[in-house]
């Protein structure tokens, strides 16, 4: 039986609706849309309750102002531009590398989010979320048709950047004495990484956390604290360099199957070796480098 339970659980994504089921459902929902069109009850449209006077939309006054004001067309244009912009941003949120809107997602949406992340904690949380996004994008692409070498490189660099940002902000939080927030962010990051061990392996990135076993704050459930201390499931976010090297060697021997290897790395591919089979945590207290890129492109980030 496969040793990597998380990876096996992730492969349950292969369960999908059949095409027939999907199309039939889509047809029924399209019919529903025609039968039950939008009927706003929230501000923005007139809504008349039985026996009550109509509630005027807040836009009523705005429209009246437009009629009186010669500058109205300019204002309307601005509103339309902003509306269109938000629509693009909305659509971009679901984009993955290769999509036409992906640059909007990473260069506009995420930059705007970064601009609003003022505090160190907010910045750390954002960096963690962005790392999770990159992992999800890689997972999404892998479930479709695989990753091209270019996309893989792009995702790898972006993910490494987010991880380093997280590390930097977490360190800053700790230096400010806010260890609890730092631990929570690390826990979240570990959880995200632990859900995608195969992707980290494929992207050739390994992440290690130092001294986290005893850092976990589980004070709200003492029994669970005892059960969890000293155990390593939460540490399934560190992929050993040996395992990565092993995998890399395999890949180097057959570059042409780069993408296939990832797509097929499900429950049986990309298995870690020996005691690192579950990506167990290992302490690397002696390392001074936060990010270690070796000649072959492997990126190692030590928290």
């Amino acid at each position, binding site marked *: 039986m496969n040793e990597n339970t998380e990876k096996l659980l992730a492969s349950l994504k292969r369960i999908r609706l059949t095409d027939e089921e999907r199309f039939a459902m889509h047809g029924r929902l399209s019919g529903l849309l025609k039968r039950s069109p939008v009927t706003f009850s929230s501000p923005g449209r007139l809504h008349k309750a039985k026996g009550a006077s109509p509630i005027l939309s807040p836009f009523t006054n705005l429209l009246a102002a437009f009629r009186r004001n010669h500058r109205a067309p300019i204002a309307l244009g601005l509103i339309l531009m902003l509306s269109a912009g938000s629509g693009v941003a909305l659509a971009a949120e679901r984009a993955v590398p290769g999509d036409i809107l992906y640059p909007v997602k990473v260069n506009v949406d995420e930059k705007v989010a970064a601009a609003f992340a003022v505090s160190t904690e907010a910045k750390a949380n954002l960096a963690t979320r962005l790392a999770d996004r990159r992992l999800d994008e890689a997972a999404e692409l892998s479930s479709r048709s695989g990753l091209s070498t270019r996309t893989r490189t792009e995702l790898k660099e972006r993910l490494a950047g987010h991880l380093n940002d997280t590390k930097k902000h977490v360190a800053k939080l700790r230096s400010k004495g806010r260890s609890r927030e730092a631990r929570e962010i690390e826990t979240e990051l570990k959880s995200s990484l632990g859900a995608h061990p195969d992707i980290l392996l494929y992207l050739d990135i390994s992440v290690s956390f130092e001294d986290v076993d005893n850092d976990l704050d589980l004070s709200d459930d003492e029994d669970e604290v005892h059960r969890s201390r000293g155990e390593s499931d939460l540490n399934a976010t560190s992929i050993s360099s040996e395992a990565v090297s092993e995998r890399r060697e395999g890949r180097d021997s057959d570059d042409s199957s780069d993408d296939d290897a990832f797509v097929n790395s499900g*429950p049986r591919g990309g298995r870690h070796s020996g005691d690192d089979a579950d990506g167990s945590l290992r302490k690397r207290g002696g390392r001074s480098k936060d990010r270690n890129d070796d000649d072959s492109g492997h990126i190692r980030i030590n928290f």
Partner: protein
Amino acid sequence: MAPMNTNNRERWFLSMYDTEADAVFRFCLVKLRDREAAVEITQDTFTRIWEYISRGETVRNARAFAFRVARNAIADYVKKSRPLYEHDLGEAAERIFEIAVSGDAELQAELSGLLRCLAGLPDDDRELVALRYTEGMPVKDIATERGERPNTITVRLKRALESLRECLGVPARAQTS
């Protein structure tokens, strides 16, 4: 997140269906362990979502919202229907994966085994595991959705994984560093 006008709402909804239908279906399948019921509840879930959207309501996190609606739809289904969990997951698993991984007997066997072990978990733990490890939902989002602390969710996930590993026969050596 929800768009402002009728056309946009319809487009957004159909796009959400395209994106989330499989995830909702898997969620229902893991919860109900009955493919036909899962398809039915998936349809019901999106019908409910449209009813919500069509009233002019907005949705911030589409996926989290879809799972919440699905959970409610499942609860209603369970109340109305015959007792669940009578199904033999061992038999059902073969049927479930016949389409999903046809031609890959080894993977099919592994996934069938996993489903059997998942069936042995408490309903709530099974849901957590599916949300986190199959759908990749962040712990924080799960916690927010359920009104619990992220650490609590993390610990429960950990225990559920331990149970799964034990059931799957994963050697203890591989579980600890």
